[in-house]
């Protein structure tokens, strides 16, 4: 526990020790603002809610979270510090958790900093703040799933660019697997239960009800399982890579 905390603190501090963190936060805030106000037409909709804000999160996360995740392990491999880390009396699981939680909290900070958008809708109208809170919570859980996938990919390489690109591709597959255009490709040849399984993996589908303020236990369990499985595989990747 204490060592997980030590890793957590180090990692979180290291995000803020370079200008990169601030650049990231600015890009995140600017693009979520742009999506919400221009694409989402939040004013034109004439409704006091943040649906047009949350609805773009899956697409925003697609590029921004792999950018946060890529350094998690690739950088340690590149610098050789993974040797230092793995010879401390810390289990691989503790290290994986510490790093994941730090990155998750970093993303949470960026997400919470979008609060001016929330202030705006409260100023203009009378939104259901419970729905908005649910949206934030759901969005963060989904962010965790993206992050866990990205961390998992990062464990396999020492090249951060490769880690980024592969993570975007993997997240894109999860994101779009519920879209008809993807499913149609599988319908031609795969049995129905496979198609259903692919559709069930879709981040979009699971996130859609969350944007409306409905936190369904099913969706939470889904994203939680993605996080759990991805981190488990992350641990396994590190252990396997150790042998080589």
């Amino acid at each position, binding site marked *: 526990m*204490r060592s997980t905390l030590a890793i957590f603190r*180090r990692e979180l*501090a290291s995000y803020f020790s370079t200008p990169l963190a601030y650049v990231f936060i600015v890009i995140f805030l600017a693009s979520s603002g742009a999506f919400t106000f221009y694409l989402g037409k939040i004013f034109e909709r004439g409704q006091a809610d943040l649906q047009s804000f949350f609805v773009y999160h899956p697409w925003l996360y697609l590029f921004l979270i792999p950018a946060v995740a890529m350094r998690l392990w690739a950088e340690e491999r590149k610098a*050789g510090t993974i040797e230092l880390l793995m010879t*401390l*009396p*810390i289990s691989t699981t503790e290290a994986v958790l510490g790093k994941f939680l730090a990155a998750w909290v970093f993303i949470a900070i960026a997400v919470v900093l979008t609060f001016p958008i929330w202030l705006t809708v409260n100023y203009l109208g009378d939104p259901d703040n419970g729905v908005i809170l649910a949206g934030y919570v759901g969005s963060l859980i989904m962010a965790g799933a993206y992050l866990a996938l990205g961390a998992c990919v990062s464990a396999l390489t020492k090249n951060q660019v490769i880690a980024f690109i592969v993570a975007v591709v993997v997240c894109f597959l999860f994101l779009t697997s519920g879209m008809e255009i993807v499913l149609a490709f599988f319908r031609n040849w795969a049995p129905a239960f496979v198609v259903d399984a692919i559709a069930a993996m879709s981040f979009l589908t699971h996130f859609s009800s969350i944007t409306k303020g409905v936190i369904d236990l099913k969706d939470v369990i889904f994203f939680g399982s993605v996080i759990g499985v991805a981190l488990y595989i992350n641990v396994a990747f590190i252990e396997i890579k*150790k042998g080589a």
Partner: protein
Amino acid sequence: MAAMIVLSGLTKRFGPLTAVDGVSFSVDRGEVLGFLGPNGSGKTTTMRMITGYLPPSAGSVVVCGHDVAAEPLAAQRLIGYLPEGAPLYGDMRTGAFLNFIAGARGMSGADKARRVGSIVERVEIGSVLHQPIDTLSKGFKRRVGLAQALLHDPEILILDEPTDGLDPNQKHQVRNLIRDMGHDKAIIISTHILEEMDAVCTRAAVIAKGRMVFDGTPNELEQRSAFHNSVSIRVKSELAPKLSADIGNVAGVARVEAGETVDGVTTILAIPADGRSIVRDVSERVGESGFAVEGLHAERGRLDEVFRQLTASQ
């Protein structure tokens, strides 16, 4: 009681390459083992297996009764490790980095502050405590690496080329540090500097192409040298041939070699027949001959020559 570090049949294969091949030795408390070998002979790989970073392909490492493969954390708690090249988190400041290591090793509060403070003093890095590690000079980075390894006052120290990149004063200081700690710890250091053997090690292990080729004291290593106990005499060049012939007749001298000539003074080297001491007989003969010599001393042996001989034959 069993030795603190026990390697048995330790082997590591990378695909078709056997980097470490059946290495066995043990290190007791109070011993400083110098690990020697040419580049690529498997020193770093062996140390990585001892510290639990790499799993062995065969064989085992037992550290104070803990099998590293089965109980890595228990073993790692007892070990301080300076990896090759001293990798560090470059974006951190020295002080923050040491605090991180202390936290990761489970220290907290006053105990943590005390230990960090004492190690900072010991390796003299107080002046760079607030500097980002990336901006430190190579020698200071190495010292921070050492501080990290010594922080928890470990029973066992594994140091991969600890004096690499240090200036002569620092080398001297680090060697003293290692020698002092050697009394109550088990230490393994790898090095390419042969004098370091004499300076700090109580034992020498030589590895070539993954195999152990020597395990003994530095003294025994020197005795392997053809030059062990040979006597070098510096004399005016014009007298050298005559003196060489004289000394060649001394009982126990196998042959006499003429060495280099500098400023009209030639060094001649009398090599003993079977490593026995000939310095007394030779100096007596020199006295009888009545030649004025510029200098005379007995050699202990040439480690670089033994090193070449041991590792080239493989």
